[in-house]
Structures are given as structure tokens and as C-alpha cells.
């Protein structure tokens, strides 16, 4: 195609690396994020495969204990701070929120670009730590090990995570102001797509939670530099203070990872069953309920840590309350399928997989909220299985579903449907094979973060490693065919799935200023009943 008849859209609006590295267009920033988090996903996934390979045999014979400790630490750090937290908000959220609310861009485009640069600087710090010897404190940085006894790159990694936190704050701040101030005329709160509701709740957590992580990391840096005893019991400090400050952010952080996924699933389930969401207000408000209650439950990470039994009771009760909104969402998604006209495209497979696996993840969370049972299963593979069911079975599946669902809008190309469905099934099978045996390992009493384990646990570990290789393959296939589709995929129309939503009323890929004219919204979200 000659330059003349190249369609005018945000990808072709300007050329050259400066137009990308200095862009203020939220769509281009979303693509910058897409590329960087995919790289981190591959690095984190590679560490995961090494861990699973090591655990094939009871003896620690693939890598030394020191290296293994670094592997699981860096797998945790990279996957959480550099993939799961930014993935859906910074890629799909950045790209779609202005489109979904009929705005030309986010409220603070310059801050949006700054947030990507901060993410990259934080990433460089962490990768520098990885390359120059790694860090072996676990992604939780528990003191006094991390502040006094560890001798790996704790300061460098802590700085990396500290810096990346601000990228999350800026993204959250940008979303809140945009959603409040820049909705199209007629787009009241209860006509907003649930994707926007979910990101609004997520942004509240990003803005109100991340600073406390920043201060707890600053205190670790002070402690390591000056040995002033804030967390060192020998000087009067209390290690539990760090755990409180750390988990005040890190539990709501798991809701930062899952809420956007819930938003994506609401969009996909309604589109592929051609029906309005069942119980719109309940699903929307349960996002806010999860964001608010999510800040009151962190103590369930500390039931056996020497925390007072009274606090244990309080946190256990609150932890059960936070499970209720998640249940409401699952029931409402399932009810949306009733009397629909359901087709099983790849995004729908990922969404249905999400609902099933997130349900198992959420219900096993109740085991951990029950005080008497948590005493037995805390810090075992039961916990590992629980949060992987939510993170990998939930957040990553929703992320892949969202990427497929909006791929035509982002790139103007359609992905190969058959390959996508095969990959979705492989991911589903590989995932369950990897993590379901870990529930059994956990209850049997295999502790987490163990380089070598007693022989009787080997059977389930071998099955888990087998599953991990299938899962790894399942993730590779989409990366390959999505790249392939950039060049050879069929050209997409403005609305290939004829879905509801403002983002589908503008060409794919959209022009630089999103809409020729600011749309006026007259009907509720997902009004599939009006337009068949």
C-alpha cells in the first residue's frame, strides 16, 4: 500500500521512534505497555518453568538452594509487580477507557507517558538486580531476614519495586479523574460499561494502597542502610509491623489484579451470549465493595505469625465478608448465560474458564480465612494453589480473553479463530494439571519455597511439572499467532463481533482523536436486546 491510501488511524498518524517514545496518545501508550509487560511475562514464566523443573525430583539437584530461592523470589516479583498489576489496567484500560466513555484521551496524557517511563525505570532496576545476582528474600521481603540477614540485591530490587509503584499510582489517578470528569454526554454512572466500573474500583486501590507499600520498602532501605532497629527485634523493633504495612497494600494488590479481569469477563460474557448482564447494579457495586472491603482483610496472612488471636478473629470475619461480592459476580455471570444465544469464540472460552477457575480459587480462599484450617495450611502449597487459581486461572485468563476480544480494535486485524480456541483449551488443561495437585500437596503438609522436599510428595510434583510444560506451551501459541495476525490476519471491520459499547462505534484501529464527534449516549450498557 502506498503512503497515499494508507488509512488514517492512530498507528499511521505519525511515524518514527520519536512519535512512539514521546507519544501522548493513550492508545500508543497502551501498546508500549503491551510490549513491555509481555517481555516481563516471558521472563517470569521462564523462572516458573525452572522452578517446576527443579521440583521434579525430591532432592535439590537442578540448581543450588541459593539459586532456587532467587528463582522463586524473582518469579514472584516480576509476575506480580511487572505483569499482573499493570497488565489489564495499563494495556486494555489505557486503550479502552477513553474510547468506552467517549473521550478524546485520558485526563493527564503527559502523566500517562510518565507512568510508562517510571514502569520501565523500575523494570530496569529489577532486571539489573536479576542479572547481577538476584535477590533471595521472597517477593514478600519479610524482615528481619530482608532487612538484616539477606546479603543479595535487596536494595536494588526494593528500589525497582518502589519506583514501579508510582507508575501504578499515576495510572490509577489518571483513570479516576478521567472517569469522573470526562464521560460523554448522556453517559451516566449506571450506563457505564462494567469494564469501566471495574477499573474505577481498581484505581481506588492503586491510589490508596500503593503508597503504603512505598513507605514499607523505604523503611527496609533505611533499616538495611543504618540498622536503626525499626524492624530489628534486637533494637526493640517488631517484625510484625513490616508485615502489617506490607500486607495493607499487598492484599488489596490481589484485587488490583483480579478486578480488571472481572471487568473484561463482564464485557465478553454479555457479547457472546447476546444478552444484557444479569444484575448490572449488583455487579457494578460489588466491584466497589471488593475495593473497599479489600483494605480490611490483610490480617489473614498473619494468623500464625504471632498476631494477637483477637486480631485474628477480626480479620477472619472481615475476610469472609470480602468473599461475598465475588460470589455475587460469579452468580450474575452465570445467570447472564440463561436464555442467551451463546457462541464459543476464543474470548468466550477464556471467560467461561475464568468463571470456573475463579470460583475454585475464591472458594479455596475460604479455607484460608477459616482460622483453625489456616493454622494447618498456611505457608504450604495449598496457599500456592489458591492464589495461582485466582491469578493464573483468573487474571491471566481474563487478560488473554480481553486481548483476543479487543485485538481487532487495537490492531485492525482478526486473530485465527481455530488456533485461538485450541490454545484456550491447552491453557485450561495445562493450568488444572499444574495447580490442582498442589491443593493435595498443601494439605499433606508440603511447605512452600522448599528447594528439596520429602519423597512422598513427588507424585503430585511430577504431575504439576507436566502440567506446567503444557501451560507454558499454551501461552506460547497465542503469542505466535497474534504476532502472525499483525501481518497476515484478515482486516477487521469497526465491529467484528457486533458488540455493544462506544469503543465499537469508531473504526478499528481508531483515529488519533478516537471519535469524529463526541458521541451522545441514550441507552443502557449491553443493550443487545434492542440491537440484535
Amino acid at each position, binding site marked *: 500500500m502506498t503512503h497515499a491510501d494508507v488509512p488514517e488511524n492512530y498507528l499511521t498518524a505519525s511515524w518514527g521512534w520519536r512519535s512512539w517514545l514521546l507519544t501522548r496518545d493513550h492508545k500508543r501508550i497502551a501498546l508500549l505497555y503491551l510490549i513491555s509487560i509481555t517481555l516481563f511475562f516471558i521472563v517470569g514464566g521462564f523462572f516458573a518453568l525452572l522452578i517446576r523443573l527443579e521440583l521434579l525430583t525430591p532432592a535439590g539437584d537442578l540448581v543450588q*538452594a541459593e539459586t532456587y530461592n532467587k528463582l522463586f523470589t524473582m518469579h514472584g516479583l516480576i509476575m506480580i509487580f511487572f505483569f499482573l498489576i499493570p497488565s489489564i489496567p495499563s494495556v486494555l484500560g489505557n486503550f479502552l477507557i477513553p474510547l468506552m466513555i467517549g473521550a478524546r484521551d485520558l485526563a493527564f496524557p503527559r502523566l500517562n507517558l510518565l507512568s510508562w517511563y517510571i514502569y520501565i525505570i523500575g523494570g530496569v532496576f529489577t532486571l539489573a538486580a536479576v542479572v547481577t545476582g538476584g535477590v533471595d528474600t521472597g517477593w514478600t521481603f*519479610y524482615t*528481619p*531476614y530482608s532487612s538484616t*540477614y539477606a546479603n543479595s540485591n535487596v536494595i536494588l530490587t526494593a528500589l525497582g519495586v518502589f519506583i514501579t509503584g508510582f507508575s501504578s499510582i499515576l495510572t490509577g489517578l489518571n483513570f479516576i479523574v478521567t472517569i469522573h470528569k470526562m464521560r460523554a454526554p448522556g453517559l451516566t454512572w449506571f450506563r457505564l460499561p462494567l469494564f469501566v466500573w471495574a477499573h474505577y474500583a481498581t484505581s481506588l486501590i492503586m491510589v490508596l494502597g500503593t503508597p503504603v507499600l512505598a513507605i514499607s520498602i523505604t523503611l527496609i532501605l533505611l533499616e538495611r542502610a543504618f540498622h536503626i532497629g525499626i524492624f530489628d527485634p*534486637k533494637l526493640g523493633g517488631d*517484625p510484625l509491623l513490616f508485615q502489617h504495612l506490607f500486607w495493607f497494600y499487598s492484599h488489596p494488590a490481589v484485587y488490583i489484579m483480579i478486578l480488571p479481569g472481572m471487568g473484561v469477563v463482564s464485557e465478553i460474557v454479555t457479547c457472546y*451470549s*447476546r*444478552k444484557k448482564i*444479569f*444484575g448490572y447494579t*449488583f455487579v457494578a457495586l460489588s466491584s466497589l465493595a471488593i475495593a473497599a472491603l479489600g483494605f480490611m482483610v490483610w490480617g489473614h496472612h498473619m494468623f*500464625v*505469625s*504471632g498476631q494477637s488471636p483477637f486480631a*485474628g478473629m477480626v480479620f*477472619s*470475619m472481615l475476610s*469472609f*465478608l470480602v468473599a*461475598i461480592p465475588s*460470589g*455475587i459476580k*460469579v*452468580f450474575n455471570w*452465570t*445467570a447472564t*448465560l*440463561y*436464555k*442467551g*444465544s*451463546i*457462541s*464459543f469464540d476464543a474470548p468466550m472460552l477464556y471467560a467461561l474458564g475464568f468463571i*470456573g477457575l475463579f*470460583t*475454585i480459587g475464591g*472458594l479455596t480462599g*475460604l*479455607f484460608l*480465612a*477459616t*482460622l*483453625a*484450617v489456616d*493454622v*494447618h495450611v*498456611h*505457608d504450604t502449597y495449598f496457599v500456592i494453589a489458591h492464589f495461582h487459581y485466582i491469578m493464573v486461572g483468573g487474571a491471566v485468563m481474563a487478560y488473554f480473553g480481553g486481548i483476543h476480544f479487543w485485538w481487532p480494535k487495537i490492531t485492525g486485524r482478526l486473530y485465527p479463530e481455530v488456533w485461538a480456541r485450541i490454545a484456550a483449551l491447552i491453557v485450561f488443561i495445562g493450568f488444572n494439571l499444574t495447580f490442582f495437585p498442589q491443593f*493435595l500437596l498443601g*494439605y*499433606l*503438609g508440603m*511447605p*512452600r*519455597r522448599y528447594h*528439596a522436599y520429602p519423597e512422598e*510428595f513427588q507424585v503430585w510434583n511430577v504431575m504439576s511439572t507436566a502440567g506446567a510444560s503444557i501451560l507454558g506451551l499454551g501461552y506460547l501459541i497465542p503469542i505466535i499467532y497474534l504476532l502472525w495476525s499483525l501481518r497476515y490476519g484478515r482486516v477487521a471491520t469497526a465491529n467484528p463481533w457486533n458488540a455493544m459499547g462506544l469503543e465499537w462505534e469508531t473504526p478499528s484501529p481508531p483515529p488519533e482523536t478516537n471519535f469524529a464527534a463526541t458521541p451522545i449516549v441514550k441507552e443502557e450498557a449491553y443493550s443487545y436486546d434492542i440491537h440484535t
Partner: protein
Amino acid sequence: MFTELPFWPQEASTVAGSVDVLTIFLVIVAFSFSFLILLLILYFSFRYRRRPGLAATPVPTRLSLEVLWTAVPLGLTAVMFTWGSGLYMHNQQDPPGAMNIYVVGKQWMWTVEHLEGRREIGELHVPAGRPVKLILASQDVIHDLFIPAFRIKQDVVPGRYTTLWFEATRIGSYRLVCAQYCGTRHSGMIGNVVVMEPQDYQTWLANGADDPPAKSGERLFHTFSCAGCHELQASQKGPPLIGMYGKSVRMESGETVAFDDAYIRESILDPNEKVVEGYRPIMPTFRNQLNEDEIIQMIAYIRSLGTGDAKP
């Protein structure tokens, strides 16, 4: 191959059974809800799969359904909470008259001090059928004493004592592991709990080679010249120690404090934190001079000087 596939851990303590019953209840609830959702998804997917002649018909949101799937989970979680925390409170409450054993976790091994004299590394011999209370101390970082067969676990926090109790019911050897990441050889910090018949335990205890902690405590008491101020009769410089263990004592600040392990340990490391009434804060700190094992030996010695009215 499938005969010895491990599905369920051994039950070897009094609380193991009750925890397992609660867990099975949770498994049933989790399984039934997951199965319900799976069934609904499969049925709806098949029944309303897209095919010519079938259009999606709008379904209004019914408040009664929303209330249903809020109230039922609330009810179930209320049951889980009350059952779980009730059982937790029972399981954490060590019965009176439990046998005290001191366990010190240090980077990458467990040392066990029996009051009657045996000292063990990585092994914990206990009699069956008797409640045992472990008093846990850490020399360096946070460890966690986890005995899967007994369904008990407790973090060992440096800077204070935490306790853990159990009553073994079946003879045998069960695995004891560290469950809180504590450094390079965290996965090597494994040991065994050997549950023996009470008589075998006594004979095993009797022929211990090393002298009981109380004796080594007495030696420390003199080498660090504690006797100068605290010599056994009442003296004006330091409060007397005979027959004090377990009593509650009034402090200079007016509050009364139990004269227990935690108070002795705190007074050795931060002597002027809580000074006994009628005495001046002149005691020097012994921080960095006594390690956790020696403090335990000092406590054993003070205990051996006779206990006050209340048993610890």
C-alpha cells in the same frame, strides 16, 4: 502405583481430627458450589448454544435471586467463621499442667531443650497421651514450627517467645518442618517428632548424656555474677529470685506483671523496662552476651529455685 498415592495426612494429635472434620465440611461446600457453577455453565452453554431460530430473549434482573445468592453465602460463611474461630480458640488454649519443652530455631536447625536434661538437635522426643507445650524462641530470623501430622503451626518470632501445644495420640515418628522462609537452607530445616510410650520416654530421658539446662543455667548465673545483686536471700540491690517463678509481682510503675519466661527474658535483655517495686533501674543489659539457649538455661535455673503459687 496408586495404592500409596498420598491424599490425606496422618492424624496423630488430639486436634487433628477436629481440624480434618472442618476441612471436609469446607471441601464439601467448595465442591458443591464449584460443581453447581460448572453444571449451570455446561447446561446453559448447551441449551442456549447459538443456532438458527434461537434468539436471545431478555431476562429482567430479579432482586429475589440477588438476595438469595448474597444471603446463602453470608449464612455459610457465618457458619465457617464461628466453627473455625471457635475451634481455633480451643486449639490454641494449652491445657493446664502441660509439659514444657523449650525449642530454639536458628538458621537452619532446631535445638530442643528438655527441662529434665536431654538436649536434641532436629529431634523432638515426646510421650504419647500427655499435653506438651513448646516454648519457641528464634536466634535470628522468623522461623515456623510446623508438624503436619498434628495440624499445628506457629511462627517463631525473634525477640519474643511464642508457644505451641499438642497432645500426641499415636506412637511413631512424624515430620517437623520450618514453614516460614528463613534463608538459604530453609528447606533443610527438617526434623522428626518421635512419639514414644510414656515409660520408654522416661528411660530415654534418664540416660541423657548432657546435664540438665538448670545446671548449666546455674553455672551462667555465677559466671555473669548475677549472684552479686540477686543472691539467693533478699538483698537491697536486686529482687530475690527464690520461689518467684510464676508469681505476679508489682512493678515500680504500679502495674503487676507475671514473673514468667517472657518477663525473665525481657529483664535480662532490657532490664529497666519493668523494674520491680522498691528497686532502682541499675541492672546492666546482657543483650548480645547471652544467646537464646543460654537465656533458656537461665530460666530453667530460676524455675528450679522453686515456683510461686501459680504454675506457668
